[in-house]
């Protein structure tokens, strides 16, 4: 059974999206990207004076990976900055895909929901395929869908913290209320188990950077995340059993009357 991730009409086999920053070297980055199996990779331009193309040698090196590039607007705080950078990225990389970031708080790099919606509206008008990095707030997510986003990327927890899925209640709500929208958990994933959990919860993909790039062995960690995400996705497709209140034997206990067994099993609760 083909289990493709479809974003803006384009199909992908991999559900892991990775960043390209913070690696010990560009060579290790490229090896890790290959090991992750990712087909979409993000990259940041903000501080590299993109207009002068002085980071070009590295961008070319990244582009050789053959992945769909997802330039991001990391470091931007206003829709105006975002739009200028987005236009430059489109020109340099020849792609209208964009990971939209509008940072609202410098310390935890929390997205600014108001700037996000405003920037998304304008970028979509300009023909960008916008993948917004947003909080897990249902109303913000809806507003982003209203202006035309086809994919949402709610955070698991703040960027670089590695704290995993901090607000599972909100995330579950998003999944339940937006069943047809591709939802990718972006940011805060520190361990493969957390990525696996996101996939088990029904999210469509996971985007991460620090947990791989800062591992002692980034290439091996990239593989670990690839396996975790495949595993979580398979589990979701297979259908997870529901948790039960108490441990219940799967065969009747012979020395206990059947009515007593029913009471003790707790299944009626």
């Amino acid at each position, binding site marked *: 059974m083909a289990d493709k991730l479809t974003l803006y009409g384009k199909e992908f086999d991999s559900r892991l999206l990775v960043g390209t920053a913070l690696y*010990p*070297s*560009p*060579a*290790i980055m490229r090896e890790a990207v290959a090991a992750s199996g990712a087909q979409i990779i993000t990259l940041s331009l903000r*501080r*590299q*004076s993109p207009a*002068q193309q*002085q*980071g070009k*040698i*590295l961008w070319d*090196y990244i582009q050789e990976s053959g992945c769909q590039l997802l330039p991001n607007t990391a470091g931007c705080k206003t829709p105006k900055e975002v739009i200028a950078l987005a236009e430059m990225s489109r020109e340099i990389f020849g792609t209208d895909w964009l990971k939209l970031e509008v940072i609202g708080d410098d310390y935890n790099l929390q997205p600014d929901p108001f700037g996000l919606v405003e920037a998304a509206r304008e970028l979509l008008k300009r023909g960008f395929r916008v993948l917004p990095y947003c909080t897990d707030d249902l109303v913000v997510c809806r507003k982003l869908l209203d202006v035309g986003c086809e994919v949402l990327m709610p955070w698991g927890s703040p960027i*670089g913290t590695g704290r995993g899925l901090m607000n599972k209640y909100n995330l579950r709500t998003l999944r339940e209320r937006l069943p047809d929208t591709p939802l990718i958990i972006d940011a805060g994933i520190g361990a493969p188990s957390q990525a696996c959990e996101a996939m088990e919860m029904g999210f469509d993909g996971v985007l991460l950077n620090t947990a791989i790039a*800062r591992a*002692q062995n980034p290439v091996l960690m990239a593989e670990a995340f690839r396996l975790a995400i495949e595993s979580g996705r398979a589990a979701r497709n297979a259908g997870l059993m529901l948790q039960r209140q108490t441990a219940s034997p799967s065969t009747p206990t012979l020395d206990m009357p059947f009515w007593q067994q029913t009471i003790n099993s707790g299944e009626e609760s």
Partner: protein
Amino acid sequence: MDGFTACLGKAYPQCCRPELTENIPRKKEVAESKLNIVVAGAGLIGRLLAWRLSKKGHQITLFESGSLKHPAGACQTAAGMISPLSELFHCPLPIYQLGMQSLQYWPQWAQQLELATGVSVDYRQAGSILIAHPQDRSELLQFQQELNAKLGPEKSGQLQWLDRNALQNLEPELSGFERGLYLASEADIDNRKLLPALLHALEVNNVQLREQTPVECRPGEILTGNRTEKFDLVLDTRGLGARSQIAGLRGVRGEVMVVETAEVTLNRPVRLLHPRYQLYAVPRANNQTVIGATEIESDDMSPISLRSTMELSSALYSIHPAFAEARIIKTRVNCRPATMDNMPVVESRPGLIRINGLFRHGYLLAPALAAQAEREIDTLTQTTEQVT
């Protein structure tokens, strides 16, 4: 590929092979054991090589595309730290190993230079200290974990935890911090004193100095404009100037600031760990402190950005509030020559040795790499003696 050869790509360990025996550039008919050597590029490694080789009696010509008094390369912008342990956090083991070799050379070389020139180069082996704010304490633990994993338990004793008292004994000004890590073996050198001292030593040793002269390097010869000049051996240490010759060589922008205040005195380099920003503060003479450094993937030499100034200054201010009244004496920007694996390149063929890609580790790696080249040239000299 063996011996003193290319370590671009996978062959890292060759960089740090202590003994070099094969692939020596052979000059068949040299009558004397002293060679006529050209060094192209008067950055740190070029100056060190020219000095070491001229001391041995070789005839040296040093070319520099810019000014010798005001070097344009990263060596002039760096903070001169020789910190193999601190760097190991984000680097592969060979960088540490080469750095440990350099730590052996520096004290003696600094002393020799001071004797030759009468100028102090402020070599200081007082260790360095790593601190983090309470909310970022996991950065210190992560650092320790990473080093333990890379060095193994027997060598991890080079890291020493400091409690509040121990920290204050070493650095009384760091009273706002509860704990820190002490890396006792690390050192630093004042590059702004070292580079002129090396130049002075070259003049004393009668090295032929040719500045404002860009060159191209080929085995046994260099090109200056339309002229070709022959030499026994060409050492290409041009950094980013050799861009067209070294695959994947790129510039990585770094920005530093020099501030001055008499209110805070640090005794050694201090690094503040943070999940996103990295700050080092290296105390220098005259109440000055060099703070840095950004690392931006861009070959961009334009002046420091407002954002970088704010990041560096606020990180420094967070170490001690009295830094708020420090005066900004200078901001400096440069691009570090780096390869795609961020490892140094040492390429050797008959008549030509290229050393490049020292990235953010110029002062850490240069003596070890220069000493390797020196040993190779010694072997070459012995070989030519046998030939004649």
